[in-house]
């Protein structure tokens, strides 16, 4: 029973990471640094709350959230691709922008500086937090599928081949007729929509939007993307691993076994170790972050 509860809780925590990790893979494999995952998620969470509160439908909320995430990603893509702005600076700016905008409109729409009114979600209050509650939430299934689908897309489709080509060697891709800029635009907007679903899940699951509710989850997803070496299967495992660590931390709270801060560090430390190549070198897409290539 405890093992099952542990598994259910891990899954519940992992869903936002899986969505955002899928977004991270999409963006970075096309050559654009995914520092913006946090912003996409927060934007998606806010969109979900706004949409669901306005229409009463969680599905329309999810769609609104995806539109918000897609628009933020488009802003990033236009800055980085059309204006050749530095991707790190732009990424940081977009994250700050989303924090500011969501706070401003939280005050404007709901007259609160902390949270939205109660948002309708999937499922019922009495279904609890076990597997039953997870199974009736369509976002759980979508989240589990997201990295599988991205893996298939990248490995088996013509579009996926183009994405990988522009991320590794844009000049070569261009020389065989691939429209590098368009491929990247599509990949980045897709990345924003995927990552925003992670935020949508949080808002609908917690039945409200709260200020900065993503709380660094976008950076954990970025860590999973890198720790998983930009390969969808490995990234999915990394997301589950990080979620399991978090579940452990929650379970150990109160017992004095390990300070919770040490478990919090696990994803970041593992990512640094992976980047340094101490346990198999993580090699990034060759054209990642390059400004001049387009």
């Amino acid at each position: 029973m405890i093992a099952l509860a542990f598994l259910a809780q891990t899954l519940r925590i992992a869903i936002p990471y899986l969505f955002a990790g899928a977004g991270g893979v999409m963006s970075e494999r096309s050559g654009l640094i995914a520092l913006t995952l946090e912003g996409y998620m927060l934007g998606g969470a806010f969109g979900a709350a706004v949409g669901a509160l306005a229409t009463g439908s969680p599905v329309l909320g999810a769609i609104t959230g995806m539109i918000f995430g897609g628009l933020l990603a488009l802003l990033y893509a236009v800055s980085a691709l059309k204006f050749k702005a530095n991707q790190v600076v732009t990424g940081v700016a977009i994250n700050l922008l989303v924090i500011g905008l969501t706070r401003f409109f939280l005050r404007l729409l709901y007259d609160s500086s902390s949270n939205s009114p109660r948002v309708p979600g999937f499922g019922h209050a009495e279904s609890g937090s076990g597997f039953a509650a997870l199974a009736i939430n369509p976002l759980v299934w979508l989240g589990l599928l997201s990295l599988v689908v991205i893996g298939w897309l990248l490995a088996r489709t013509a579009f996926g081949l183009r994405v990988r080509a522009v991320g590794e060697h844009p000049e070569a891709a261009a020389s065989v007729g691939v429209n590098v800029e368009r491929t990247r635009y599509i990949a980045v907007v897709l990345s924003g929509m995927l990552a925003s679903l992670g935020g949508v899940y949080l808002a609908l699951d917690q039945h409200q939007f709260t200020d900065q509710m993503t709380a660094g989850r976008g950076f954990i997803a970025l860590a999973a993307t890198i720790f998983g070496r930009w390969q969808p299967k490995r990234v999915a495992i990394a997301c589950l691993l990080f979620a399991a660590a978090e579940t452990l931390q929650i379970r150990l709270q109160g017992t004095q076994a390990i300070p919770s801060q040490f478990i919090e560090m696990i994803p970041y430390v593992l990512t640094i170790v992976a980047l340094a190549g101490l346990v198999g070198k993580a090699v990034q897409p060759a054209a990642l972050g390059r400004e001049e290539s387009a």
Partner: protein
Amino acid sequence: MNETRKTQLLEKLLPPVVALLVAIVVGDFLILTFGQSPAAVYRLLLEGTWGNAYGIGQVLYKATTLTFTGLAVALGIRAGLFNIGGEGQLAAGGFVAALIGLALPAATPAIFGILLCTIGAAAGGGAVGAVPGWLRARFGAHEVITTIMLNFVVLALLGWVVSAKIHVPESLHTPEIRTGAVTRLSDIMPVFHGSAANLTLLVALATAGAVSWYLFKTRRGYELRAVGLQPDAAEYGGVDVAGVRWRALAISGALAGMGGINFVLGYKRYYEEGFATGAGFLGIAVALVGGNSPLGIVIAALLFATLSQGGLAVNALVPKQMVDVLQAVVILAVATAVPAVRHSIRASAKSVARSLVRKTPLDAPTPEVGK
């Protein structure tokens, strides 16, 4: 002033001006959606910041921290490196300063106390910066990711030490330091009463001067800039590129760490969890708007500090969060305007040069960061 200097000045000044205009337009829009008059809000913003001594003091206090984190980011960028770990380095610096202030006997002469705490702050931040520096030099691990990941590690570690070992019960801060307190501005000029401004701002100005001297007047600074502009050429010219990178990130971390004394020695006189929140990322904005030059950074720090403090001033009319949006818009606009402006100015300069059949001196290339 010759043509090249004029072009360079235009390249530096145009993006911030464009950014401010864009920010004002966005600000107008936000203010109007809240049903207020932009003129009234902007007037309140200026009155609440530069209109009275308390406001000026608060702006100076916030600008002091941002000068340190801005210098930290700029020094990295001059070496072609992106240090986005300013927040963790700032927190580590403040923490070490507080530890030293707690450990020294209360009878320590103030000047020694301050000096030791400041050195400790630089060492604390420098140690945090040195880790990604070493990882970059030794393993080629990209500093953008390692610095941001290290932020979380450092903040978690500090959170653990403070909560488990040395906090004052029912709080998230350490006890007050016994020595090392920096004089508040209000102790000298009572008109600043209540504001957090303190003499750390002189340390910030001196540090900006020192960074300028280091970058432009010393051999090490020359090597650092050479690596930033063209690492292969620098290596060919005999520069130890890995060593320069390692050193640059350590110094960058030390600069951010020194910023910790503004809060710990000058304002609260203890280390408190969360005091560094946001200052690291805003340091990127300050470096960018200030064109990575120490003087520009001081000015940009004042601008961003004015916005931060101004938010509190206008809160009666519009949500203070408006300025968070404006700060982000300024960063985004400068980031997109810098390459665009450079490109168009150079294109026009080239055509002018061609039409005059005259050779213009080669423009100084800018460091290519984020590779």
